[in-house]
């Protein structure tokens, strides 16, 4: 029996980068999800007191979820244990990586064969404190590189505290071509970008066939692309690598004669593109791609052209 994998959001960043603020924003958010949070130790977190319900053993119960202080043990075992929770598996998991540990270890563990079918990485967010990042040296600098490397989305936090020029320097010194960056203060990250499952994020992805739509008080824009013809998947994969950097999420299904009984599925979360394929026997073989940006003016003409260029011709019936 195929189970629906539990989505996992991993938050990394140094102490003081704003992880706890983000965590509080998440726990206070109206995403409608019951969230289980895994942290390294309770001492390092400072959860809004009105959210707390009770603390028992290594778990703090919250009004809309719980926090387990258990990352000091083996993450794989901890995650497996969550699945056998008598109240059922968690709806959504947020892992707050310790400020001193390498988040790539968490990401690797989530892909181990024993758990990769039951958990799915929804997003990996790395917060950077723009006030301090330029001063890092040695092992701490190495760790920052690993945090940035692992990130689907990089949150440059506290941007109001530095000049435009300094901000640009951080971009030049630290970021990479495929980086998806959100500049914020107070870790104010739109949760619809972080969570694929939140009500609005789902609504955005599943919405109608409009070519271009904007919603959520103008914060998000979506673009749709579709084709009834078969697709050159190899070409498509390199086209998707060139998505505009303002696209934070995308989701698509594609059909090709190379995969006659399957459909190719794409999930884009920030800088990460996740391809998969699954069995598909249905007659309806329309390829579709929906993309979400956070900026109003995104030049989609180039990507439109590249996507059109992946169309091979009519699908064999």
């Amino acid at each position, binding site marked *: 029996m195929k189970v629906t994998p539990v989505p996992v959001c991993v938050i990394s960043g140094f102490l003081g980068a704003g992880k706890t603020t983000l965590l509080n924003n998440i726990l206070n958010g109206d995403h409608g999800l019951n969230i289980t949070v895994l942290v390294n130790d309770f001492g390092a977190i400072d959860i809004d007191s009105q959210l707390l319900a009770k603390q028992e*053993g*290594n778990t703090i119960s919250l009004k809309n979820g719980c926090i387990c202080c258990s990352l*000091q*043990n*083996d993450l*794989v*075992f901890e995650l497996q*244990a969550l699945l*056998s929770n008598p109240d059922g598996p968690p709806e959504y998991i947020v892992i707050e990586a310790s400020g001193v540990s*390498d988040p*790539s*270890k968490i990401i*690797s*563990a989530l*892909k*181990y*064969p*024993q758990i*990769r079918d039951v958990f799915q990485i929804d997003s990996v967010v790395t917060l950077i404190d723009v006030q301090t990042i330029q001063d890092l040296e040695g092992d701490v600098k*190495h760790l920052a*590189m*690993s945090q*940035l*490397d692992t990130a689907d989305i990089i949150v440059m936090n506290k941007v109001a505290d530095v000049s435009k020029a300094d901000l640009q320097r951080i971009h030049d010194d630290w970021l*990479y*071509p*495929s980086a998806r960056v959100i500049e914020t203060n107070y870790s104010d990250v739109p949760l619809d970008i972080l969570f694929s499952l939140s009500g609005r994020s789902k609504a955005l992805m599943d919405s109608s066939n409009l070519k271009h739509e904007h919603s959520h008080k103008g914060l998000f824009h979506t673009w749709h692309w579709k084709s009834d013809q078969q697709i050159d*998947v190899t070409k498509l994969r390199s086209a998707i690598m060139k998505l505009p950097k303002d696209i934070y999420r995308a989701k698509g299904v594609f059909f090709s004669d190379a*995969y006659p009984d399957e459909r*190719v599925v794409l999930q884009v979360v920030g800088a990460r593109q*996740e*391809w*998969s*394929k699954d069995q598909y026997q249905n007659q309806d073989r329309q390829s579709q791609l929906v993309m979400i940006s956070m900026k109003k003016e995104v030049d989609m003409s180039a990507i439109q052209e590249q996507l059109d260029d992946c169309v091979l011709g009519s699908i064999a019936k």
Partner: protein
Amino acid sequence: MKNMQNFSSTNCHPTMTTAEILLKNGKIYTVNSDQPWCEAVAISSGIFIGTGTYEELESLIDENTHIIDLQGQFVMPGLYDMHTHPDLALAPGYAGYLDIAKEDPTPSEVKDAILQYASENEERWIYGQYFVKYTFKREGIIPDRYWLDSFIKDRPVAIHDRSWGCILANSMALELANITKDTRDPGNGYIERDPLSGEPTGILVDGAYSLIYKAMPPTPSHALERAYRDGLNYQASRGVVGTKYVHVCEHRLDALKAIDEAGQMSARVEAAISWQDDIFPVKRRWELLAGERHYYRSSRLNANAVKFHFDGTHESRSSYLSTAWPGENKWRGGLNLTPEHITDMLVDLDRRGIRVIAHCTGDGASDLFLDAVAEARRVNGPNGVRHQCAHSTNLLDENLPRFAALNVTAEFSPVGWYPSSFAKARQSVGEERWPRMYNFKGVLDAGGIAVMGTDWPVSHINPWVGFEAMITRQNPLIDSDEVFSGVAVSIEEAIRIMTLNGAYAMGVEEKAGSIEVGKSADLIVLEHNPFEIEIRGKLHQTQVQLTMLQGQCTWDEIEVFTGSANEAVWKERPNF
């Protein structure tokens, strides 16, 4: 030691009427209950031929006797470290593997370093460290087999990333390791694959890099020899005369034999052949166990033991417990081998006189191990083979008398029994088990044999740290009043654990381990008397001034043998 070709036999033994060496004016703690203290010892042909006062031994002196005045220094039998791994700690660093010695190497620096190494080294494999994924991302390059293939196709390449979270291999390395789209992922790791084609990308994560190791040539013999030589050198400088190198293969045994033949085997070494291939492959395991191991045998070296990992670790909650882990309904930890496997193996090896050393951190694993030994006793009868329960992090109280009854040695490794990050992780086992952690005292009081192993590189190879901490159960390395759970042992008990009990665990207690007439002349001279100092914070810093094994000087800080035919084997302590 093979190069001392002066063996004794029934009708042929060296005369022992006069002393070659006489140490006098010492405070000699013998660990012999019939004569706990003496002032002088006389040594001939590597054996104590007299212990007592100088006056009592005077008749053993002739014109060739080397008389050493200890000037009141403290002397005791040499130490035994019953579980350690110099090869694992040192050999990789000595192997001459590729080291891209740059702070944050860019892809082109990685490429240049690989090509330069390739041109300078004839070994087919190019293995080493490290690349940084982030620098590849900065340049928009994907670190995969195709990138490596683009400049080096004809030699296998495998490079670790900086955090050792993955290894990057080229197509030839994957091919030699037989890694294809059909290869199954190992536990605790995976082969990164193209999501649509399933083809390996060349990135192997965590446990998956062992797939590459298996295909690589073994650690070069020069690196293994240097590692063991440095390990022995360090151990001699800390007073170790007996040790177990737990986990060896045919290459490691070859390295140890080379050191033995060069006269540098400065401790009695028991080398335990790995039962599993989980650290490195043992290609000649069955030949070794069938009898090939005897080719390595000397008075200083034997390979009459095997080592296996029965369960996991407390840190990963894979220690196999007698009940479920805290917070779990069913999870008791994991066994790497079935109890039936262990029982059959134990009965078989026991019959052949081979010691079985079992990694058992959880109280459930040691319970099963003792059951297997009990079955071996039932089938084979009492035969004197002493098996060894390694680590023994947690033992059930009910099992304490079984160590004596079944003649099993309980071995404890130090970083666990004083407050340290390891010990704290091990406390996750639940409060009710805390009093039973590292229960030296329980084993001793029940009549059993407890020993200690440094388990380097898990903790440091200096045995004095654990020596102190088993008496204080406090962290010797930091100034803190925190005391670790469990019962401490007395200094007398600790000395016996470090000496005679070690000899017992190696099966040589009739010949060594205490200062007695007829026993091997093994002793150490210390800078201070442990009975007269404050143990806390002090004992672990003890400097060993002289180490002797079979009358041979292996370490000599006070230079009493300088210029003699018995000059110390080692002159300088390696800096680990």
